[in-house]
């Protein structure tokens, strides 16, 4: 199947639905498009495709349509849809599977700020073994080149003692870093059986950066 868009044609990849079902642990084919997820989604104003359209596009194998959509990054993971889905599908799991696919392929252009947030969080935790809010905010502001955003909020939080100036390590921080690397480095399940790590980086048209250090999302 091909999707005819205004400026391009998107070819469907028939195995995409199996792949996403496998890595998300949710059977996407089960979706019968009732729209209950869309009906209750609190983030829908921010989305280009509705949650039900994301499910439909995954069923139709329209990988390029979903992975380049803004919706997959907007999902707040609130689980409202999952709690209500009559087919018992957890859409948040599907959305996370799609963002990690997009992440690995470096396709973050539809929501670079959100991708930068994910990346900054991972970087912080890789080093300290736990979150360090001030450091993570710093990384995020550098990545998004928006140094003054949220400064007032930061002052408020600081005044109430919610932000620590000094980062704290945990004992097994090296262990946490190893775990994160392991996850990021492991070859993703792929339909062709070819190691996807290299191919995806080529797809993204970027120099492969070491995992855990940004894949070019902060332009």
């Amino acid at each position: 199947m091909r999707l005819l868009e205004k400026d391009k044609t998107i070819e469907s990849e028939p195995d995409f639905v199996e792949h996403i079902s496998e890595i998300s642990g949710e059977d996407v084919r089960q979706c019968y498009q009732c729209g209950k997820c869309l009906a209750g989604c609190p983030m829908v104003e921010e989305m280009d495709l509705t949650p039900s359209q994301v499910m439909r596009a995954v069923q139709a194998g329209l990988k390029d349509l979903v992975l380049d959509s803004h919706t997959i990054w907007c999902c707040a993971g609130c689980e409202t849809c999952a709690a209500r889905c009559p087919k018992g599908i957890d859409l948040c799991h599907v959305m996370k599977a799609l963002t990690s696919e997009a992440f690995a392929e470096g396709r973050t252009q539809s929501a670079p700020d959100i991708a930068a947030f994910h990346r900054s969080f991972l970087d912080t935790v890789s080093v300290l073994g736990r979150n360090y809010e001030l450091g993570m905010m710093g990384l995020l502001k550098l990545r998004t080149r928006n140094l003054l955003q949220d400064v007032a909020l930061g002052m408020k939080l600081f005044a109430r003692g919610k932000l620590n100036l000094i980062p704290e390590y945990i004992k097994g921080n090296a262990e946490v870093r190893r775990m994160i690397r392991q996850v990021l480095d492991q070859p993703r399940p792929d339909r062709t059986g070819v190691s996807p790590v290299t191919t995806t980086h080529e797809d993204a048209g970027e120099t492969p950066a070491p995992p855990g250090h940004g894949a070019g999302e902060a332009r």
Partner: protein
Amino acid sequence: MPRTGVFVCHCGTNIAKVVDCPRVAEEAGKLPGVAFATDYTYMCSGPGQDLIAQAIQEHNLDSVVVASCSPRLHEPTFQRCVEGAGLNPYLMEMANIREQVSWVHEDKSEATEKAMDLVRSAVAKVQRNQPLTRKELPVTKRAVVIGGGIAGIQAALDIADAGIEVILVEKSPSIGGRMSQFDKTFPTLDCAACILTPKMVEVASNPNIRLLTWSEVEKVDGFVGNFEVTIRKKARYVDVDACVGCGECWAKCPVKTIPSEYDAELGPRTAIYRPFPQAVPNVPVIDKEHCIYLTKGRCGACAKACPKQCINYEDQDELITEQVGALVVATGFDVEGGKIYGEYGYGEHPDLITGLQLERMINVSGPTGGHIVRPSTWDAKKQEGEEPRSIVFIQCCGSRDPEKGVAYCSKVCCMYTAKHALLLKEKLPNAQVYIFYIDIRAGGKGYEEFIDRVRDEFQANYVRGRVSEIVPEGDHLLVRGADTLLGRQVEIDADLVVLATPLLARTDVKELARKMNIQTDKYGFLTEAHPKLRPAETLTDGIFLAGGCIFPRDIPESVASGGAAAAKVVDLLSRDHLLSEPVVSMIDVDLCQGCLTCVRVCPFNAIEEVEIEDPKTHEKRKVAQVNEGLCKGCGTCAAACPSGCANLAGFTDEEVLAELDTLCL
């Protein structure tokens, strides 16, 4: 002086909240000839009916008016009530003060006035009513079932099992109908032949069933319990009793390329043919349009091959008449041939087929021996062809399209398309199957679960939207459609496209309906007496309906409706005699001028022309005569008769005018 009783019903508060019932009763009591009048909360209840019966006895009433609801609801109730008290049931009239008064008016005093008017006019009529008696009609304890599909087979078997003789008339060479063409049945995937053919054999072996295949009903005369059915036994050119179905004849037939009706024209048949191996009777028929001997007078290959000398080229159509008490019409439906949408181009590309053609292709006894192939690549000699890798199903190819096709949903396509998708994926696991649909209608036991299974387990790709066009591109078909859930145009390269075409009323059923005087709807489907409460009956007593001639139906529904029609027939024919309805037309032959206006206007063909002889002058003249068995008492003839000699019993001019006089004078 008449002694009329008037009984005013409150119907709880239905009538009483708008109409002052005690006052209506009081005023009615003052009318001339009214000997007793009262009101009561529920006149139709046990105590209410007792009240009427008691009053008839105590006050020696000779006629009764019940002022309550519509006679459509309770006329039989109150007729039984007065009959039980010793009155003729036709000396009871109803004044409808519910539907015609309390339900449609608000002003209490005006409504009460109107109720009193209606009571007054009913009293005037009932005092002129004549007692009418129902006549006993004889019953012929035999039945005809028209159509040997699954509905007709079920009806015939059920009637025969009740000990009643049945004549099963089938137009084609074998019984079995549409179901015999199917491979598997949804949603259980039972093999259609495995559940159908035992029933076909049962029909052939049941001593109470006379099977007339290759026969058509020519004429139906008479009325309930007493029909005379004329059946045309078409020339078969093969001796049904002697033939053993050995197959020597069709093996030798030189005409081998006639498109087979049984295989939905996907495969060939010979000129002398048996539609399918499990045919009942297992006897071939000669297609006289294509037989060389019958068209050109030479050949005779089949006659030479036949070891039992069963072939008779001189065979002629034969008309037989049968007396029966009831008929069941189970003539089934037609399947549209894919031509509704020119933009799909059916007929221009062999890889574009209908659902029925795919059904035959899937079947192991079908034209490809059960191989799923692209028809464009099929080599009949080698029995091989290329398997399709991408198959597109298009639902609603004319159904739910009031502009170009039919407005209704054909009901079975969602399910059979899902079944096809499943069977294809079983045979070709690597093929991609796409199904364009508008809505999936899977209302039935296990149906929705079946759709789920096809979508999830068998990975059919359901695409919501219609297809705009199908364009040949290279050696495949480019299907352009919409995915309305994404709001976008889509394209699919297909090797095989299957159309779910609508189920239609049979084109020849209109003619049959005219012969039997039963009704058809705007699509040509036969009309039930009541769509909900009398679904197996027609408005003509003694004629019943079953199966897909009423509307598209699946197998369970057809079987159920065959059983329902059979139950009605058995009920009717198990009576010793029938009671006629006495509200029928009466024609005074002394006054009749023989203009026959009534014959022309009668919607039930109940009036015929007869010749009578004057007993004194021996002069012969033509007059109109009513067949009371057919007359429905509509009164059209009474209104049309220029000499006033046609009158409707129970509604004579005198009675109706008395009613009007009280209202108008």
